[in-house]
C-alpha cells in the first residue's frame, strides 16, 4: 500500500518569503500526485496535479511542484508567499489498479503567513 509523508507540520513565514513544503511517497509503480489546499473555513481545493510529462507542474495562485521520481518526492514551492496563502496543504497520491484510485493523503502542513 502507498503512503505519503509530509515532514513539515507547521510552517510560519513572513510575507514575501519563499516556500517549499516537502512531500515524499512510497510506492514502486506509476503514481498520480496532487497538492490540495484547505483555506480556513473552506473545503479542500485542488492546487495542482502531476500525471505524466514535464515533472515541473504549475498550479493556481503561483504555486508549482516538482516531481523527482528518484527521490519519490513531489515538493510544493512558491517564490513569494502572501498572507492569503495561510492554509493547510495536503499532498496526496493515487496508485494501484485502474478504477480503484482513491487518494492517499499526507498528514498535512499548516502554513501561517505573517503580514
Amino acid at each position, binding site marked *: 500500500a502507498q503512503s505519503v509523508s509530509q515532514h513539515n507540520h507547521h510552517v510560519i513565514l513572513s510575507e514575501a518569503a519563499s516556500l517549499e513544503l516537502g512531500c515524499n511517497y512510497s510506492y514502486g509503480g506509476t503514481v498520480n500526485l496532487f497538492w490540495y489546499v484547505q483555506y480556513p473555513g473552506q473545503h*479542500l481545493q485542488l492546487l495542482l*496535479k502531476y500525471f505524466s510529462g514535464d515533472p515541473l507542474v504549475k498550479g493556481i495562485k503561483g504555486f508549482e511542484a516538482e516531481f523527482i521520481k528518484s527521490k519519490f518526492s513531489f515538493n510544493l514551492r512558491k517564490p513569494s508567499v502572501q498572507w492569503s496563502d495561510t492554509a493547510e496543504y*495536503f499532498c496526496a497520491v493515487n496508485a494501484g489498479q485502474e478504477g*480503484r484510485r*482513491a487518494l492517499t*493523503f499526507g498528514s498535512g502542513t499548516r502554513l501561517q503567513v505573517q503580514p
Partner: protein
Amino acid sequence: EAGVAQSPRYKIIEKRQSVAFWCNPISGHATLYWYQQILGQGPKLLIQFQNNGVVDDSQLPKDRFSAERLKGVDSTLKIQPAKLEDSAVYLCASSSPPQQETQYFGPGTRLLVL
C-alpha cells in the same frame, strides 16, 4: 457547475447514538468517495462507489459504518452506534472521466461524539 453538496454541516451526538450523512456529487460524476478526516490527520478513504456499486470498502469499519448509493447519484453514510473516536470530518468527493483521477471535495460534515 455546482460543487459537491453535503449535509448536515455539523452534528453533535452522544456515543452509542446513530447518525447519517448525505452527499450529492457533481452532476454526472460516476465515482463517489467518502473520506474520514480526524483532527491533525489527512483524509482517509472509507468507501468508493462507481455508479451504485462498491469498488473499495476495505477500510470501512463495517461493524458500525454503512454506506449506500442506491440510484448512482447521491449517497448516505451511516454510523450506528457511534463511538468517541468517530469524531471527525466526513468528506465526500466525486470524479468523472476524462479527468477520472481528479477528485472534487464537498465542504464536509463535522461530527462530534460526546
